[in-house]
């Protein structure tokens, strides 16, 4: 199933040099890109809030936000307030946080494992989460009395954590080290087991729409995000952003391999544990609320590298911003393109992200 293909991809050899050999990173590119992306993010939030089954003019959106922030604003109707502040704003901020978190996790895992195909679900996270989700969707397993989305999210989170623990147990060496190659392979192995369980449960369930519901979960959705979940997502993404940027120098040190990183004063074992487990927990939190949204974590770091170079002081914050913007628009498209129905957001991220990536790749290969 999906988890399996994702994990297998990640074991193929890296090809980053051929992707971005000639990418230049002039001083100033990073700051300029950061300013542009920050502005784009702010505009995207305001504009996207107005878009949907009911269109809200930008002026009214701004009034609602101003009033909610306790600032002077023109008259706001109750219906506008409900649409803008209660329904769309948390979903859009949750999307931004999810996109930022996935892009960060992808960037870190690609650098740490030196594998271009690494994505946030590398360590069995999506497979484990799917096991949890399927158990609730298909088998009706109840989780501590929770129902609906809460049960699904909790089960997915627990499943992801169990998978992570199994992967770490498989990969950890006698000396307590966590070598990237073995960790990736352990992720593949656990992912395959999870995929087998997921397929088995779906095929054997006898519920005619089980497969469709599981597939929909696997493709991800932000439809259930309200203020409390959005707040969790934002806090998680911000904590991850700060924690990961604090390791920017350590990640740079891996450019010439592990021995070189060690001789530059990076503690390999500590750095790998902190970053691998940290990004896995980050991803598990995101997956619990939104499902396993693909593509963003894989492609955004590559796109940013192509434009701004591979140094992490730029790569990490710019990836977070770019991931946030892409996810906002992917989610906006997912909820508004087809009237009365949600398109799975994983479909949209791929459709939006792939052409952008293809264009940059093509430009690279011409200039190389």
């Amino acid at each position, binding site marked *: 199933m999906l988890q399996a293909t994702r994990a297998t991809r990640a074991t193929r050899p*890296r090809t*980053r*040099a051929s992707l*971005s*050999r*000639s*990418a230049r*990173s002039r*001083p100033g590119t990073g700051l300029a890109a950061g300013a542009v992306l920050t502005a784009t993010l702010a505009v995207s939030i305001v504009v996207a809030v107005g878009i949907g089954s009911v269109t809200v003019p930008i002026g009214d959106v701004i009034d609602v936000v101003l009033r909610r922030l306790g600032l002077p604003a023109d008259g706001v109707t109750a219906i506008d307030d409900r649409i803008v502040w209660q329904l769309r704003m948390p979903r859009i901020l949750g999307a931004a946080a999810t996109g930022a978190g996935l892009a960060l996790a992808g960037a870190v895992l690609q650098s740490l494992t*030196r594998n271009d195909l690494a994505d946030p679900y590398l360590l069995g996270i999506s497979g484990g989460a799917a096991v949890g989700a399927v158990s609730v969707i298909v088998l009706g397993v109840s989780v501590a009395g929770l129902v609906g989305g809460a049960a699904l999210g909790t089960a997915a989170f627990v499943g992801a954590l169990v998978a992570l623990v199994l992967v770490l147990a498989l990969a950890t060496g006698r000396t307590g080290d966590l070598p990237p190659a073995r960790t990736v392979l352990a992720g593949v192995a656990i992912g395959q087991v999870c995929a087998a369980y997921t397929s088995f449960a779906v095929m054997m369930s006898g519920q005619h729409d089980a497969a469709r519901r599981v597939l929909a979960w696997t493709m991800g959705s932000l439809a259930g995000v309200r203020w409390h979940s959005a707040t969790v997502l934002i806090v998680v993404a911000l904590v991850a952003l700060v924690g990961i940027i*604090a390791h*920017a*120098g*350590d990640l*740079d*040190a891996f*450019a*010439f*391999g592990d*021995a*070189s990183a*060690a*001789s*530059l*004063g*990076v*503690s390999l074992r500590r750095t790998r544990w902190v970053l691998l487990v940290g990004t896995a927990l980050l991803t598990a939190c995101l997956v619990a609320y939104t499902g396993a949204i693909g593509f963003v974590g894989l492609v955004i770091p590559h796109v940013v*590298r192509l434009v701004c*170079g*591979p*140094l992490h*002081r730029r790569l990490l914050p710019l990836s977070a911003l770019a991931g946030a913007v892409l996810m906002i628009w992917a989610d906006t498209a997912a909820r508004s393109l087809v009237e009365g129905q949600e398109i799975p957001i994983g479909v949209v991220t791929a459709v939006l992200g792939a052409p952008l990536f293809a264009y940059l790749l093509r430009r690279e290969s011409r200039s190389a």
Partner: protein
Amino acid sequence: MRLTAEGVSWGVRERTILDDVSLDCAPGTVTGLLGPNGSGKTSLLHVMAGLRRPGAGTVRLGPDDVHELRTRVRAQRIAVLEQHSSTSLPLTVRQVVELGRIPHRGRWPASRDEGAAEVAEAMRLSGITHLADRDWHTLSGGERQRVQLARALTQQPAVLMLDEPTNHLDLSHQLDLLAAVRELGLTTLAALHDLDLAAAFCDRLVVLQDGRVAAAGPPEEVLTAELVDRVYGVEATVGRHEHSGRLHVVWHDARAAR
């Protein structure tokens, strides 16, 4: 700073790679590490650089046990030039050299040109200032080695460890690199293959064989026909060149075609 190893042993699983090795590098001297392939040169460099923890024995840098130093502090004092270095990232020469500032940087980026003076000085010493904006992948082997040397110097170490730094370099670049290293006046430990070069550029030589020290001392004492035969199994004559007065190893082995 003085770098010493006392009774260092190291192995992987049951295989012993280094067996009771002791070594003394006086401050500001260049020590050449010789020995056949697989004799433990790289392992010894890694143990002495603090990258591998010995099973027995200690490595001291000045008064400190290298393996008890915090990794960052260790990297501020010992820089390593690896035998091979490659990256898949599209880095410029300046960015590669700037990696050497990592042990000196805090968690959070300070000013933009933090360490710029050290980077510029290291590039000047290594003779690569003109390459600063080149893509690392477009450089020749000799240029890459000099870039790595600049990266190592940017760490502002007290000790420089070189693992076969002249590999893949032509004769002129070999001389350039070793002369540059001598100029620096750092305590240096260099694994080398070329016996003539080792004799010319090192104050002391240490010869490893099967993970043990087979000989140690000044080049003229260590490099003898007897040693070359014993350690490498090659028949040779060691003499001094009539013009330069430098030591020379001339081999006349039966395996040669003529």
